[in-house]
């Protein structure tokens, strides 16, 4: 790879032309497909401006009303991240090639994980709302699957980069699989794992804040309510509060993560 990049070769013009033409066709096609219309944006701009100016000043009194839904969002995120983290432990181990050398095991675990991660978060929420009814439980279920996907992917990649020395010595002294995992894998992988759980929690809070738009509990329900009734000042309060919460959690969590790694 390094040798290739060092070679100075003039890129072939034909290839660039072909790529350029394909992209151009794709863009024209897409532009028509989504019925893009700059005119409508210019025409509609006053409405957007009214909405944004209508949001100011935020309705500070409304803060009391949204405190509870916001706490519910945080509860959903905490519980879901915990469940997701617990669920991810066996799958992380099953997907790591240095823990299970059997490629059949790792490959099937990875295919399952890839499958889980392809499902968008709100789509999951929509399914669980249809299944479990409107409320925070659907949110917890959806976010559990969502965080499970994130944590496992990051965790097995980091488990595969741990120092093979302790693994070999455990095998050499005849440890069984459980001892192998408990004494060679866990101590090495734990800090990174905790860091990934925190990272997943950050993403989960962001995602949980909009879950309510499809009825899965939390602050999102108030958001869609205020939107549908054109109470933009209240909406501004919700958006600002969400921003503050997300930024505070992000900064605390990234501080801890820096210490861990």
């Amino acid at each position: 790879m390094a040798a290739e990049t060092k070679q100075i070769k003039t890129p072939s013009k034909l290839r660039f032309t072909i790529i350029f033409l394909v992209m151009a066709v794709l863009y024209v096609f897409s532009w028509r497909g989504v019925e893009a219309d700059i005119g409508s944006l210019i025409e509609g701009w006053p409405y957007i401006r009214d909405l944004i100016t209508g949001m100011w000043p935020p309705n500070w009194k409304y803060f009391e009303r949204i405190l509870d839904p916001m706490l519910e969002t945080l509860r959903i995120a905490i519980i879901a991240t915990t469940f997701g983290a617990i669920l991810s432990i066996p799958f992380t181990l099953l997907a790591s090639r240095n823990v299970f050398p059997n490629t059949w095991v790792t490959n099937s675990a990875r295919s399952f994980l890839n499958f889980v991660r392809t499902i968008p978060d709100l789509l999951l929420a929509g399914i669980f709302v249809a299944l479990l009814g409107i409320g925070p439980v659907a949110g917890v279920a959806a976010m559990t699957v969502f965080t499970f996907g994130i944590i496992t992917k990051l965790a097995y990649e980091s488990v595969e980069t741990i120092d093979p020395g302790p693994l070999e010595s455990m095998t050499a002294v005849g440890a069984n699989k459980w001892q192998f995992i408990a004494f060679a894998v866990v101590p090495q992988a734990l800090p990174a794992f905790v860091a990934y759980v925190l990272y997943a929690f950050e993403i989960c809070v962001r995602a949980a804040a909009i879950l309510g738009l499809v009825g899965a509990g939390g602050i999102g329900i108030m958001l869609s309510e205020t939107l549908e009734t054109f109470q933009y000042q209240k909406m501004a309060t919700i958006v600002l509060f969400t921003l503050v919460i997300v930024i505070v959690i992000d900064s605390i969590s990234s501080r801890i993560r820096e210490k861990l790694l």
Partner: protein
Amino acid sequence: MSQTQQAAAPKKMGRMIKTALWLIFFAALYIWSFTGLEVEWKKIMESLKIVNKMLAGIFTPEWGFIWEDEGVLDNMLVTLEIALLGTTIAAILAVPFGFLAANNMSKRYPILPFVEARFPVISWIGKRILNVIRTMPELIVAIIFIVGVGPTAFAGVLAIGLHSIGLIGKLYSEAIENMDEGPMEAITACGGSRLQVLWFAVVPQVLPEFFSFALYKFEINVRAASILGMVGAGGIGTPLLFALKGHDWHRVGAILLVVIIVVFLIDMLSGAIRKRLV
């Protein structure tokens, strides 16, 4: 050696206290989380009865719905178009933000007069702007654009285009911060202008990474675009929402199947291209 041993005893105490405090903290956190959640077990038990029906429906998708006019494939195509256009808009708009936020591109100003320490003010502001853009959920941005241009796929394009600037700009700025500054110095030493430094030293280094990040965001945006329809911003989300609300599990199954296959293929393709780029 003896010193470390002496120090070990209080350290052990400190660690135990620390562990205990963490345990109390987590216990309190979980008690707070679980007791606060209003769970209607009766309702859940009732709805769990339809799990069989739902699973049966999802695993027997309505095949006709996939190919019919305005069906799954048509809507999925619109979803991909939204992601493509939105990501492209963001990838272009994010370039100035990336340079603004990179701390090796901005002049350092003294924090206070007469103090030696210098601080990249512009870069700090740029980073904060990108953070705020990233924090605004794209669904809310989509709703705002829907107010302007109506519930169309174009609103989805604009929402993705605006929201994606946050992440792409951040990744751009990191790429610029991590690049080799040798060529920049060389061109400055030859008397090159700032523009020439940018064009001959910076751009060739960061361009492959920029493309790679834009592709990465495209992968994420395909997922995002597939749910934009839930608020009316075009794509596969709209039929999905209708199917979910109507408990039409065969249609949900058909949509899920196509979304999963398309997202999987896009991830594979984009991952392969990204590997070759960087």
